[in-house]
């Protein structure tokens, strides 16, 4: 198993009447709510937490890209990952990822990911999301029905740029470059391991299988509701006669660990509430621009903005509802261990993206929960895929052998 400690980096100071006062945490939330001087401390606290996660034994530390929102304050995850390259030395840097259709030219992603891979000594996991509709269409203006074509072309360019040893011309529909010449190149050849966040479209399953990429399902509704989708993925894997390495798949999970189940509710309840009711408060009109999802995906029943909004009733869900419905995995180390094992086995995932910072959780609680998970849960989950020796070379990093030791000037 590979455990990645994942940070969303939310804004933790949304007011109590946030839902009443604002229709959306994304796209049109006034930026006057953001306080830069407070933001200074928050960014550094969040980065410290990622570094702490490495020190207690997580395999990876993760960041991602979002725009115009208070849910996740990383318009550029690469800046965050760059700081982490200098103060960590073992963990994979899981950038999940760069919304490649948004970069102009997308060669920028090939360059910056190569920089991160070189800086980190070959520890980059490169994520290529399409991006949410809020980010890609509403905040960054990509035409919804052209988003996927643009994404596919960007992917093609990035892979070619990494593979080529000589300059070449790229005549795409969206990007035309007479001289593609990627300096620097990544350490990991032919490319860092690539993870694709997906939401249930068959096209994405095939894309992952065609390219040997790991499929990552990022959902906040927990593993019980994810089962149907992941079964669809594994069915496709079987149809394509690919091997069933669990490392072909990953899942994101909100996790809270305390000494007892009751203590977990007391410690983390308010922050879980903040996350589900403020961080996820997205206006349905921004969730799914018409044309963003393919017709085929809609026909296969992947959730639309209307059905998603209707299906979830977070404001009225109690801690018990969230725990019993396995939206979150929360409780004593033993409770969490049991449910994590069930998650990992039932979804058949080799990667778990652990969300242990939740909403407006203060630093001491984040570290408490993280430490308990690392010390009392993770060791018991290490050996769940013995047939695969708990590792799959195709879907994990290959760091260089001898890294330079850093001399940090301030010390």
């Amino acid at each position, binding site marked *: 198993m590979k455990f990645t400690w994942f940070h969303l980096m939310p804004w933790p100071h949304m007011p109590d009447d946030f839902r009443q006062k604002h229709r959306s945490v994304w796209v049109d939330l006034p930026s006057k709510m953001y306080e830069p001087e407070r933001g200074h401390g928050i960014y550094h606290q969040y980065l410290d937490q990622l570094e702490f996660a490495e020190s207690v034994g997580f395999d990876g530390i993760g960041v991602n890209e979002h725009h115009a929102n208070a849910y996740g304050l990383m318009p550029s995850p690469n800046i965050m990952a760059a700081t982490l390259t200098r103060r960590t030395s073992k963990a994979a840097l899981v950038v999940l990822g760069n919304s490649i259709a948004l970069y102009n030219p997308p060669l920028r992603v090939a360059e910056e990911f190569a920089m991160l891979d070189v800086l980190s000594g070959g520890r980059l996991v490169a994520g290529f999301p399409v991006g949410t509709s809020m980010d890609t269409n509403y905040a960054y203006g990509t*035409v919804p029905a052209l988003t996927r074509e643009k994404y596919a072309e960007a992917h093609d360019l990035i892979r070619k740029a990494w593979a080529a040893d000589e300059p070449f011309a790229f005549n795409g529909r969206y990007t035309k470059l007479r001289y593609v010449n990627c300096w620097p190149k990544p350490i990991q050849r032919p490319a860092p391991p690539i993870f694709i966040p997906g939401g249930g479209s068959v096209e994405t399953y095939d894309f992952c299988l065609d390219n040997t990429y790991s499929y990552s399902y990022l959902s906040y509704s927990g593993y019980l509701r994810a089962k149907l989708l992941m079964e669809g993925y594994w069915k496709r894997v079987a149809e394509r006669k690919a091997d069933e390495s669990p490392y072909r798949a990953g899942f994101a999970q909100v996790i809270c660990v305390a000494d007892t189940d009751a203590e977990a509710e007391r410690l983390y309840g308010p922050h879980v509430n903040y996350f589900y009711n403020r961080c996820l408060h997205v206006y349905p009109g921004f969730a799914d621009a018409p044309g963003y999802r393919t017709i085929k995906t809609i026909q296969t029943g992947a959730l639309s903005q209307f059905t998603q909004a209707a299906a979830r009733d977070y404001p009225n869900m109690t801690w018990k509802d969230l725990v019993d419905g396995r939206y979150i995995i929360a409780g004593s180390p033993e409770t969490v261990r049991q449910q994590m094992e069930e998650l990992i086995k039932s979804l058949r995932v080799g990667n778990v993206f652990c969300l242990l910072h939740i909403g407006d959780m203060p630093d001491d609680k984040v570290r408490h929960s993280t430490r308990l998970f690392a010390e009392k849960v993770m060791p018991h989950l290490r050996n769940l895929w013995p047939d695969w020796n708990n590792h799959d070379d195709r879907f994990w990093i290959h760091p260089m052998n001898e890294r330079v030791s850093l001399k940090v000037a301030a010390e």
Partner: protein
Amino acid sequence: MKSRFLAFKPSGTRVQVVEAGKGRDLLYLHGAGGHMPNDPLIAALATRYRVVAPLLPGYGQSTGEDGLRDMLDVTLHALDVLEALDLKKPIVVGHSMGGMIAAEMAAIARTEVTKLCLLAPAGLWLDDHPVADIFSKLPYELPGLLFHDGEAGGKLLTPGGNMDDPEFLKEFLVMNARRLGMAGKLLFPIPDRGLAQRLHRVSAKTLVVWGREDVLIPPVYGDAFKRAISKSKLVRIAKAGHAVGQEKPAAVLKAIKDFF
């Protein structure tokens, strides 16, 4: 109203054409919402004209939308359709997105479009008067955006099905994604594809019609179109919103009849 189909090579594009009425030829290009059920404007125009109303790929039974990515693709497609229909000096009428397409056709093919009627056309952008974002609207918000009388307008829009029925909902979502997915190529995120720099080329005799209560594309845009097109007249219709032709079909018919 009856439908026939045109096929285009080599693209394989198939275009559904709705026809109604007798008289002089009138080409009608619909807006981003497509034709309304028993479209009141088409019905009114058909009392005097032979209305020929092709559906843009992505709408109704017209296909081939994947091959249309930008304004030039769509303009040339519309000119191909006009040629295939073999109409006699038609009045080219376009509503909203259809007006934007009609204006582009007239700017590019001056000899083929000599009589032009723009009903609350899209295509321009004024910073002080932003056009509403139709793409982020939920279905229940649309009547108020399209009609002066939202309640009466809502009844015209009703798709005739139960949104709580998952199968109907899926059908509706597919239809919505096809239509607005296509419209987004011209209108998302800002409905400006450079028409302002081409409008001076329009030499057609042009009637611009605007609902005085249009909250989607405010009436001030009517003045901008009038200023930019030399042989043009602007008619404002009272108590009408953006779907001016569907809300006040008789008044729009009269304006067209009087002008051409």
